[in-house]
């Protein structure tokens, strides 16, 4: 079964590469990127090899645990995991999940990130080679266990999230996770800020001692025990890692089995009584197109709360900036300044993130085409559906960032940049989503899956829209930077430019995008079917 699935995976990859040359270019670039990491990695290991083994182990345990945790978190924030071997495709094969799982794991491991991770986990061998055979063998075993743990962590994280997001209570869960992250992130930044980088480094030994007995860090701690001659402890640590893998594998098989028996694609059996689309409306407004706008906005609101694809986009758009700010302030000498950018980051991600909005409709978009919805009405409706919740979220992130940095003197500039980026991004999206649609997972499909053949188009669209957003927002960004670093008195001007410029950019985007939409709507539909 394992060999069959691996052959299947290679065959699919081969066909995809032949059909879409972009993928080959990306694959080669990815491999080059992976290779470029190796010299740095080897250098770091050679440096650690000259340090005491205890110190090296502490560093290895913490870094290794971070790698494993990264495998669990990154696939959630950067959707695009290859789903060519999604378990639901084997639903008709009549095989139990238990038999399919090992093959799926191995076949799914044939990616550039896995190769890089394997290289990284094997690198400590450079340290342990001089500590004798036992230590070296333990290091090799640990490396293998660590890679398997990484793979399972990624699978479980996406599997659980796909389930949770598809459930009826997804909205509440999403909100809870958001609040939790905010609650966790704030003390994290504060703590790091007060400790400073060097203070944080002093904590490493304590953290490493704990992590060294968890499945995350145990594989990296085992070689030291072997080197010191306590084979029992080395085996015990490897055992911890192995037990972790066993538990994770069992959990994953359970998730796979549920995916086989009950696919996520159904609507979660949600029942609603009232018609929320037409509710509260009575008469024809003076501009009948506004009716279509309202309908699109209300439908959008439903999708933001009930469609896993929108929920995962939402989580990514809020969590990624939060993580970047947390990590940025951990590394930077001036964590406060990084935190000031939180609002702008969240606003920009949320606004820019709608640049492929029409593609999420899929072929259901025919209803808009058949009705000849005026382009401006369609654009405005989609924008409103995002704006109603994105504006408060962006402002909250901006205020939180200012509070963290403590620089209330430049608060207007930070908020102006946040609002400007949100509105400017939405303006760019209003134009782009009528011009450059690229494939996304269909409604009901796994929201974390990449679409085969979509890589080239999505790359072009994403580069174009992010560049456009940056250009459109460059005045307010420049003013904000000037305010923060040079001239705090420009705060009011930044706020004004952010709000007024943002509204103008958004209005232009809706008008221009609307005209493009009127010309191209049937062609858009043809690209979505």
């Amino acid at each position, binding site marked *: 079964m394992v060999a069959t699935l691996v052959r299947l995976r290679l065959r699919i990859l081969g066909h995809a590469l032949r059909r879409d040359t972009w993928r080959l270019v990306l694959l080669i670039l990815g491999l080059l990127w992976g290779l470029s990491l190796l010299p740095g990695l080897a250098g770091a290991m050679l440096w650690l090899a000259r340090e005491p083994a205890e110190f090296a182990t502490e560093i290895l345990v913490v870094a290794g645990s971070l790698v494993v945790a990264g495998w669990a978190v990154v696939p959630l924030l950067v959707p695009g995991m290859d789903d060519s071997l999604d378990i639901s495709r084997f639903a008709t094969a009549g095989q139990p999940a238990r038999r399919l799982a090992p093959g799926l794991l191995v076949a799914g491991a044939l990616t550039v990130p896995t190769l890089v991770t394997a290289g990284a986990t094997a690198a400590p061998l450079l340290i342990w080679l001089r500590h004798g055979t036992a230590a070296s063998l333990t290091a090799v075993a640990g490396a293998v266990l660590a890679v398997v743990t990484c793979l399972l962590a990624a699978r479980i994280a996406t599997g659980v999230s796909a389930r949770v997001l598809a459930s009826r209570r997804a909205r509440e869960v999403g909100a809870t996770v958001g609040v939790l992250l905010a609650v966790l992130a704030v003390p994290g930044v504060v703590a790091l800020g007060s400790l400073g980088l060097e203070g944080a480094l002093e904590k490493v030994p304590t953290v490493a001692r704990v992590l060294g007995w968890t499945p995350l860090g145990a594989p990296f701690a085992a070689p030291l025990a072997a080197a010191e001659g306590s084979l029992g402890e080395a085996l015990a640590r490897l055992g911890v890692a192995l037990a972790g893998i066993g538990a994770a594998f069992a959990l994953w098989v359970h998730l796979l089995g549920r995916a086989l028996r009950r696919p996520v*694609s*159904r*609507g*979660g*059996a*949600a*029942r*609603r*009584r009232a*018609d*929320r*689309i*037409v509710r509260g*409306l*009575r*008469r*024809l407004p003076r501009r*009948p*197109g506004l*009716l*279509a706008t*309202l*309908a*699109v906005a209300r*439908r959008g609101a*439903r*999708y933001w709360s*009930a*469609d896993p694809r929108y929920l995962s986009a939402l989580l990514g758009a809020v969590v990624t900036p939060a993580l970047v700010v947390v990590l940025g302030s951990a590394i930077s000498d001036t964590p406060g300044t990084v935190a000031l950018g939180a609002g702008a980051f969240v606003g920009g991600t949320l606004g820019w993130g709608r640049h492929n909005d029409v593609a999420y*409709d*899929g*072929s*259901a978009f*025919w*209803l*808009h*085409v*058949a*009705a*000849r*919805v005026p382009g401006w009405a369609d654009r405005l409706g989609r924008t409103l559906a995002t704006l109603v919740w994105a504006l408060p979220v962006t402002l909250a992130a901006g205020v939180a960032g200012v509070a963290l940095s403590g620089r209330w003197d430049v608060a207007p500039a930070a908020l102006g940049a946040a609002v400007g980026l949100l509105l400017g991004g939405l303006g760019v999206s209003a134009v782009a989503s009528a011009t450059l649609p690229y494939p996304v997972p*269909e*409604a*009901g499909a796994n929201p974390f899956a990449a679409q085969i053949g979509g890589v080239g188009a999505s790359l072009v669209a994403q580069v174009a829209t992010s560049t456009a957003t940056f250009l459109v927002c460059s005045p307010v960004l420049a003013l904000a930077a000037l305010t923060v670093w040079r001239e705090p008195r420009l705060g009011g001007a930044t706020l004004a430019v952010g709000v007024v410029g943002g509204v103008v950019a958004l209005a232009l985007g809706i008008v221009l995008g609307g005209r493009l939409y009127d010309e191209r709507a*049937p*062609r858009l*539909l*043809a690209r979505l*079917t």
Partner: protein
Amino acid sequence: MDVPAVALRGLVKRFGRTVAVDHLDLDIPAGSFYGIVGPNGAGKTTTLSMATGLLVPDGGRALVHGVDVWAEPTVAAPLIGVLPDGLRLFDRLTGPELISYAGLLRRIAPDVVAARRDDLIAALDLHVAGSTLVADYSAGMTKKVALACALVHAPRVLVLDEPFEAVDPVSAAGIRAILQRFVDAGGTVVMSSHVMALVERTCTHVAVVGAGRVVAAGSLDEVRGGQDLESRFVGLLGGPAQTPELSWLRPSSG
């Protein structure tokens, strides 16, 4: 002579090197119940998509009550109700919400939309699924709610692609009755189907399409020419070539 409800003039559509629709001409008289039949891949869906403004033709014109669908799309759209085949719906809405959504997109006054929505739910017997998301509907229910979306703006021409596929006999009879009343009141129905018996029973006119062209068209009796429709269809398009015998497909031979 009256203006035809639908007039297709030299419609062309190519996909890559294949010509799906090849200079197709067809007149559909107002007040007719028009069936379009043809083998798989004959270009039925492609033709109907171009006639309803969903797919840009490579050449030719499509007129609905004299309005060019592609030159004056906003004038033509209110005249046409569409039920496409194989396209999704906004299935995170409930059935009633989807009908309201279609009505509001068509810029119909909200109180009218709400009243028509309730009428359609009653007429198409969608009560049971009233509070369920369309994603959880059966295939037949989905067809019915899509038909309701095509009717909500009271069009003059209904273009239905395979409207009876996956619909149970009881619902099918109900839908036929609704369509028949629509035709009796002066509306025009155009539908494609694979099922000859159904077309013979419901339609007044029929067109046989093969390889992107109209092979025969006219009133049911003209096209049939004294035969039943199925024999005529096979005669026009050529029966299956000699079927290779699947000698192993005999359960008894083990």
